[in-house]
């Protein structure tokens, strides 16, 4: 069954949404949309460096994405607004990544596959990595769930309760770097943030509690993966963008549901 590239693509996409649902919910609640973008864009630099130094692409992406996240966190609050800091870093990471990739003469890097993803080319080993990565993120979030949620509601209440909001934020940053690393093959660096934000934003309308919103975001994401793949097959459109377009259609449909 796993020989079929479509089955593999669907399984990889659904596996990814296990992680992007809950993580995307936190990205929405904590207003980290642009932060997610910056981390995802940095992945291109990670890809170029991995090929340059001949190391695993996943390791390179996680390292650069984490470096980016920590740079953002330390730069913001030093006189620059978060918005401007991210504006500088998100685009420069992409630019430097594309420049670095152009130096790789030995190995030809198929840039469009990394920018837009190539879910139909997902192999068995990729499938294993996607699921392991997604389950790791899910486990990390489940472990820190109560503390993360308290810090999201209010840093002050978290500190008064003896928690360390900075450490919880770091857990989220690590989860984001992991998701970027496993998602880049599926939807590509440019559209990872969309898979985080659109399903979670759509789920907000239907959810009564945080756990419900996270689970619904995963469900909506999984539906978008299946619908996007089907559309891609039928209309011969690129798979990654089709998945994001399907997610946006679900968002629009749910927005039409009258508020309870």
């Amino acid at each position, binding site marked *: 069954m796993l020989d079929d590239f479509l089955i593999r693509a669907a399984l990889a996409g659904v596996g990814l949404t296990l992680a992007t649902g809950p993580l995307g919910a936190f990205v*929405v609640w904590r207003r980290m949309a642009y932060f997610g973008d910056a981390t995802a864009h940095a992945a291109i630099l990670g890809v170029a460096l991995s090929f340059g130094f001949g190391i695993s692409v996943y390791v390179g992406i996680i390292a650069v994405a984490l470096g980016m996240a920590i740079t953002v966190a330390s730069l913001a609050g030093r006189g620059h607004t978060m918005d401007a800091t991210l504006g500088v870093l998100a685009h420069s990471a992409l630019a430097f990544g594309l420049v670095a990739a152009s130096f790789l003469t030995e190995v030809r890097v198929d840039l469009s596959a990394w920018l837009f993803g190539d879910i139909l080319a997902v192999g068995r080993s990729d499938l294993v990595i996607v699921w392991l990565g997604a389950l790791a993120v899910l486990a990390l979030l489940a472990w820190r769930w109560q503390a993360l949620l308290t810090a*999201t*509601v209010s840093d002050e209440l978290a*500190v*008064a309760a003896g928690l360390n909001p900075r450490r919880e934020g770091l857990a989220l940053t690590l989860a984001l770097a992991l998701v970027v690393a496993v998602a880049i093959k599926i939807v590509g660096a440019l559209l990872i943030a969309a898979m985080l934000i659109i399903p979670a934003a759509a789920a*907000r309308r239907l959810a009564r509690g945080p756990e419900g919103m996270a689970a619904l975001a995963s469900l909506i994401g999984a539906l978008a993966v299946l619908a996007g793949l089907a559309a891609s097959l039928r209309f011969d459109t690129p798979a990654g963008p089709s998945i994001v377009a399907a997610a946006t259609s679900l968002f629009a449909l749910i927005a039409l549901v009258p508020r309870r």
Partner: protein
Amino acid sequence: MHLISATGLSVHHGGVDVLADIDFGIDRGEIVTIVGPNGSGKSTLVRALIGLERTVRGDVTHQPGLRIGYVPQRLHIDATLPLTVARFLCLPRWVGRAEISAALARTGVEGLERRAISALSGGQFQRVLLARALLSRPDILILDEPTQGLDQPGIAAFYRLLADLRRETGCAVLLVSHDLHVVMAASDRVICLNGHICCQGAPRVVSAAPEYRALFGLGTGGALALYQHVHDHDHEHDVGHGHDPEHPHSHPHDPEHPHSHPHDHPHPPSDEPPHAG
């Protein structure tokens, strides 16, 4: 050992002294009210005592294992986060249904479990915050201007609730009040703050004398008391300059000495129009 103690505590905001050389301690079961004019550093002090402010000098020490129930002055919860009252009360520790409804009933907002946090009025939210603080079984309750926006009977009822909670649980209460003169009668100590501790002492319980009853209204049930400020120094030179080391402020207290503190006369406590809670 004090539950929380501070020695020589100083806090800067943008290079300006907000608090200078504060020595403070609060003991188990004690009720302490902090009063002071706007910008006197009341919130900064309680935030520093919790560990929410970077201090430039001095130390804050918590008793090991101290549990703090904190009710902040304001709390904005992002509308993208769906949260019912019951779920909010389970942060950061899961508690059972019975415990949740008991805490809500205790703070006078029973039956709100399934209500969305965003649908609460200001007064309800304040009481939900207090219920959440109680669920952590605190050694000390810290409340930053919890009576803001309440009318006088509302303030009196809230103070009675705090006094009852202290009696029932034995927790200490540290309260910030925006009213300089009319304070919680159960306060063991009132601290007047203006960048430094100006004076401190016990409040005078409001008597049943007709002039007081006229001032404080009926039905406050003895929950309110007057605090008589005893300042031995003048604040005019301090305004806008922060702490001035040339003018030490730790003179001995002299109750007979008239002082020119800008707020040394009792005023009617409800100088803001009451609005529905």
